[in-house]
């Protein structure tokens, strides 16, 4: 029953070179360069080797951005990640101080994170009526609360055996291991979201959940996987965090959820779902990391840095909306 009107429908995509240059990612690259020039101008210590040396502390948070991007693309949010990091780090320290081999410590961290994520996923997929915001808000208190109980009245713990952690804080030449891991994971997460069937389905769910369900997509299974991976990655984040802090306390991982969300949103991933890609998120993440290193070198107070990132997060969401509104009013005139 070939088309009766014989109409032909074009299926050749436009060349994407032009689109790439004028995309948000293109702008982000420019911002990245600008930030680095800025930092180099104002801090005499800012250069590639100091950047590579001071970067690892902040890189651990970049891990969190990767699965957070998936959650945002789903149109959801997870604000419990900072607390999962805290709980994983605490458990790692406890296991480490029991003289367990390093691999067991690492597995503990990953397992605790995974369980935290799976708990979120389980509640959200069993009670689909619940908004992720309130559930992860509750688990945020619970995970950190459990860490508080474990840490006891002192509220902190230090590790006695640092061998494993100093090993993973090592370097190839000047490049720290963690940077390799960040890049490898970023490539994997980007490929899966951008090119794979799984990724396409994530976008479908984030844009129109009902249509996705009617089209035979296992919506709840995919949500469950993503929240669980979010947990696993926060375990990973905790392990690398320990490799520079060698201990945990009740404030470990405070505000990490905001950093991860800020990186993703600044990278052009829509907070309402369905839009954005990992590449943008990664560039944005490195902008923030460089900014932190640069500002840190100038002895800018940690609170001021948080202020800047908070403002950046709000501006990243608000500005495109405002520009859109202005454009619409101009057009309608």
């Amino acid at each position, binding site marked *: 029953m070939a088309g009766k009107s014989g109409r032909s429908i074009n299926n050749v995509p436009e060349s994407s070179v032009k689109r790439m240059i004028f995309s948000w990612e293109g702008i982000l690259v420019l911002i990245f360069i600008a930030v680095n020039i800025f930092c180099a101008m104002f801090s005499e210590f800012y250069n590639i080797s100091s950047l590579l040396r001071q970067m690892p502390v902040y890189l651990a948070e970049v891990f969190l951005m990767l699965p957070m991007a998936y959650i945002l693309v789903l149109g959801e*949010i997870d*604000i419990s990640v900072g607390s999962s990091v805290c709980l994983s780090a605490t458990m790692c320290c406890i296991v480490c101080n029991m003289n367990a081999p390093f691999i067991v410590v690492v597995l503990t961290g990953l397992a605790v994170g995974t369980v935290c994520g799976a708990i979120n996923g389980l*509640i959200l997929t069993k*009670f689909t*009526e*619940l*908004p992720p*915001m*309130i*559930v992860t*808000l*509750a*688990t*945020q*208190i*619970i995970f*950190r*609360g*459990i860490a*508080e*109980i474990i840490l*006891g*009245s002192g509220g902190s713990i230090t590790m006695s055996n640092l061998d494993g952690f100093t090993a993973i804080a090592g370097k190839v030449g000047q490049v720290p291991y963690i940077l390799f891991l960040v890049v490898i994971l970023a490539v994997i997460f980007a490929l899966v979201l951008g090119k794979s069937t799984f990724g396409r389905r994530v976008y479908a769910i984030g844009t129109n959940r009902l249509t996705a369900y009617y089209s035979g997509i296992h919506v709840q299974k995919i949500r469950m996987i993503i929240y669980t991976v979010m947990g696993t990655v926060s375990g990973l984040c905790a392990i690398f965090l320990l490799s520079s802090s060698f201990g945990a306390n009740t404030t470990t991982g405070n*505000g990490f*959820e*905001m950093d991860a*969300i*800020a990186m993703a*949103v600044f990278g052009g991933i829509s*907070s*309402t779902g369905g839009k954005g890609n990992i590449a943008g998120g990664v560039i944005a993440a490195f902008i923030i990391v460089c900014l932190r290193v640069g500002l840190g070198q100038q002895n800018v*107070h940690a*609170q*001021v840095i*948080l*202020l800047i*990132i*908070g*403002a950046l*997060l*709000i501006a990243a*969401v*608000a*500005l495109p*909306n*405002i520009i859109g509104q202005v454009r619409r009013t101009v057009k309608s005139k």
Partner: protein
Amino acid sequence: MEKKSLVKKLTGSREALLAVVLIVLFIVITAINPSFLTPKSLMDMLKNNAVTMVMALGMLCVMLVGGIDISIMSTLALSGMSIGMLLKNDVIEAAPLAFVIAIGIGMICGLVVGLVISRADVPPIIATMGFMYVFRAMGYLVSNGGEWAGAAALGSFKDFATTKFLGINCVIWVVILCYAFFFWFMKWTRTGRMIYAVGSNASAAEVSGINVKNIKLLVYVIMGLLAGLGGALQVSVYASAMPDMQYGGEMDVIAACVIGGVSMSGGRGSVLGALFGSLILATIAKALPLIPFFDQLWLNTIKGLIILIVVVMNVVLQRVADKNALKGREM
């Protein structure tokens, strides 16, 4: 049939259920420790939870329009710290002026948050997450990088929390006045009903001539105002101002509302519910140390669990109610 009517009652009048829970809690705790149910102990409880109780009213408004605000305790810290420093450096002295300044700062914070949410369409959770850090950092900056304003520095201001009027502490009077005002405001004024209308169906409200954006702005300004008031109360009750005060306290306020039956998706909730919700939470916090095994360290975990259980229970009860309604359908 009996079971069905019970379910109906539970879902029907949330306030009645909450009152029952509160009374049961009181009885149980008094049985464990008779010193709980004395006027002094109750007054202390109210005074120590005044901040949460007052701010629950603002959160009620915010959640009624389907929003959320997790920046409130940073607003509280900023406004509280500001007056603390002003009093410490002897710029101001009079307590009323300190209150006005704290409320003013809170309102400005709320206005900024409200503008970003209502005019730039930033999702409330993201906007307030950002402002949570921005305002908290500003509090630190105001405090010259972490200074405290201790009891000595606060002068006569701290006396507010120890003064009594008609035998009741002034702080509790503030709480009573706030609740009385909001009870009237939410039920009997047009603006109050507009908040409900916007939360129930924003697009319909738009069509019937309600300025939805302004109502959304208004609730965040109210929230900011109450956070500012909370800042002044906090400084007065604890006789000190520090930049990290009430860190994480927004969870208490949200928990109070959630327990009080305020819906996360907007449109449903009442002043009475917020009152019972915050009282239940305060009672649990007060009672926890009285129970063997649990100690103060467990408090946060239990709060989180309560929020989780309440929201899950809501869903389960709704499902049961829906199912019963279906069974009743004739075929």
